[in-house]
């Protein structure tokens, strides 16, 4: 870590100090204590917000279901019984009914959570670093670098994201990986804008000047001192965008451009259920509810994170 690295938290100096008091101390004796203290305060603010907790629970449940899909799913997600189990209404054997291939819809939803998580995580780890890099470099360098990078960002911001993603997938060929690429390519600009705004705010602050005077290179300053500062607002924004990413991915799946059959992608499931909407409405209804729930979870979580990490903009 740093030169003065105080990496090991000191033993609680005075034994009468409770853990909570240690965390909330306004005179932290180490960096770790200060960090943990801040995290604790943020967590308490977050946990006070009941809706945010519900969001967190939904997302944790999604992750859990995705991990243990093999254990949870009662049937195979891809192989159904065409002869006896086609388009069955919800029942004890099939809680959410079956689709036109005789597959259990609940099992498909459970396995579909993996695809949803896959898309969301991949888009986030592709788009967020791109935006972070462009934004911080642009904001720190200033001058013509800033002008050029921001012009490019603005151009991308002015594009119709969904339609561009469609065209991109059309050129690349349908498939879940290409959908991820298309969504990532169209979703980094807001992150660049946020990172740039944060960078501009701290660029001329005294402690950045101090680091500069100590001879740190611009690369080091951006990597070690500016990027960490952008993280909290970036995380909030990415979380809030997750719902949009899920909806876009589902939209691509609905149009047949995302995950290809027989993958149990929720958007594609709605598309295939569409043909039977009049008589077997549950085929299309169930995956929609799943999408709604997960998007709602991310939205609630994002709102809560924003309120906890950035109290200035809370309630807006």
């Amino acid at each position, binding site marked *: 870590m740093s030169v003065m690295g105080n990496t090991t938290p000191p033993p609680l100096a005075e034994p009468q100090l409770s853990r909570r008091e240690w965390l909330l101390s306004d005179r932290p004796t180490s960096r770790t204590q200060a960090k943990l203290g801040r995290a604790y305060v943020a967590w308490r603010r977050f946990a006070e917000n009941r809706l945010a907790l519900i969001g967190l629970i939904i997302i944790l449940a999604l992750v859990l279901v995705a991990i243990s899909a093999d254990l949870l799913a009662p049937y195979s997600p891809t192989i159904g019984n065409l002869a006896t189990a086609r388009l069955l209404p919800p029942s004890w054997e099939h809680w959410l009914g079956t689709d036109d291939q005789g597959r259990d819809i609940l099992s498909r939803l459970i396995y579909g959570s993996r695809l949803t998580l896959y898309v969301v995580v991949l888009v986030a780890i592709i788009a967020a670093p791109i935006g972070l890099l462009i934004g911080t470099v642009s904001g720190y360098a200033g001058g013509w670098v800033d002008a050029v990078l921001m*012009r490019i960002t603005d*151009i991308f911001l002015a594009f119709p994201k969904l339609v561009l993603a469609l065209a991109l997938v059309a050129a690349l060929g349908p498939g879940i990986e290409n959908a991820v690429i298309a969504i990532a390519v169209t979703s980094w600009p807001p992150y660049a804008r946020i990172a740039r705004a944060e960078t501009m705010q701290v660029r001329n602050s005294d402690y950045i000047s101090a680091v500069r005077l100590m001879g740190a290179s611009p690369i080091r300053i951006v990597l070690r001192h500016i990027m960490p500062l952008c993280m909290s607002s970036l995380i909030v924004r990415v979380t809030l965008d997750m719902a949009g990413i899920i909806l876009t991915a589902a939209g691509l799946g609905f149009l047949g451009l995302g995950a290809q059959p027989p993958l149990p992608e929720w958007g594609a499931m709605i598309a295939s259920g569409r043909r039977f*909407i009049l008589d077997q409405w549950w085929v299309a209804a169930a995956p929609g509810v799943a999408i*709604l729930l997960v998007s709602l979870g991310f939205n609630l979580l994002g709102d809560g994170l924003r309120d906890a990490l950035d109290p200035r903009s809370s309630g807006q």
Partner: protein
Amino acid sequence: MSVVSDTQPAPRRRRARSLVKSLLGFLVVVIVTYLGLLAVTFFIGRVIPIDPVLAVVGDRAPANVVERTRQELGFNEPLTTQFVIYVQKALSGDFGRSVLTTNPVMTDIKRVFPATIELATLGTLIGAILGIPLGVLAAVRRGGWLDQIVRIIGLIGYSVPIFWLGLLALLIFYARLQWVGGPGRIDVVYEYTFTPITGFYLLDSIIQRDWSAFGNIISHLALPSLLLGYFSLAYISRMTRSFMLNELSQEYIVAARAKGLSERRIIWRHALRNAAVPLVTVIALSYAGLLEGSVLTETVFAWPGLGLYITNSLQNADMNAVLGGTIVIGSVFIAINLLSDLLYRLLDPRTRAR
């Protein structure tokens, strides 16, 4: 901030001069953005596909057609030359021919675009007319029941897949309750009696005083436009609330109260007038969102607009049509951005005089 002194020119003239200057700046931005849009579509259409000619004519075309097209499109030229030609053609509205309809893409788009505009405009109108007052009242009675409702509307609007909600709405209000017309813009029986003029059916039926067609068109429009209106409302009301909360906490509101103004005047005349400045951008974004969302909604409602045209072309690997549609929607986006920027400047005196 500029300080007034007697030697400066009259404020009006200064404002006019700065307006011209900012217009020139806008023009440069628009040109650069448009070139960027063309570069991206060029990249998608010509660079990514392994054989762009196949992408244009489709892989079922006979070999001589492929070769002729390759010559015609100048695909044997270097990429930079190709791009220049591409830009020249795009600027004159030539996006090539659609494989599916065999028409020039531009002709197709001209035919289908009014349907999309009609729907998106109606949706945004519904969203703005209902969303702004809702957002204002939610901000004024913060924490009240109306605020909670706006919050729920917003959360669901931000979380629900539009195509799924459209399907359910069709199932319930068309198939089960039969309250509204089904998919499409008008019943088949009218196809022989009703002649489109402008392509905006609502307008056309009024011009021709064909009231029975008018009613039928409304019944078809109702569901998709209310659905789009809901999404627009979710976004606009939430943003209005947030802008209003910000304005209501400003000092000039305290000053307005100290002047003895009524709450109503303070809210609608002062706070909303200030919130209107960023709201213009929000409404423009909402309109743009509905336009591009048309690729999903039009598929659900079999609405013969640009969105359906693009998705149909996609399924048939008709890249000319897809990219032409993309460029048109992108251009409209640029135009909307430009318009909202100009309006922003008109509404906010602070940017006007800069």
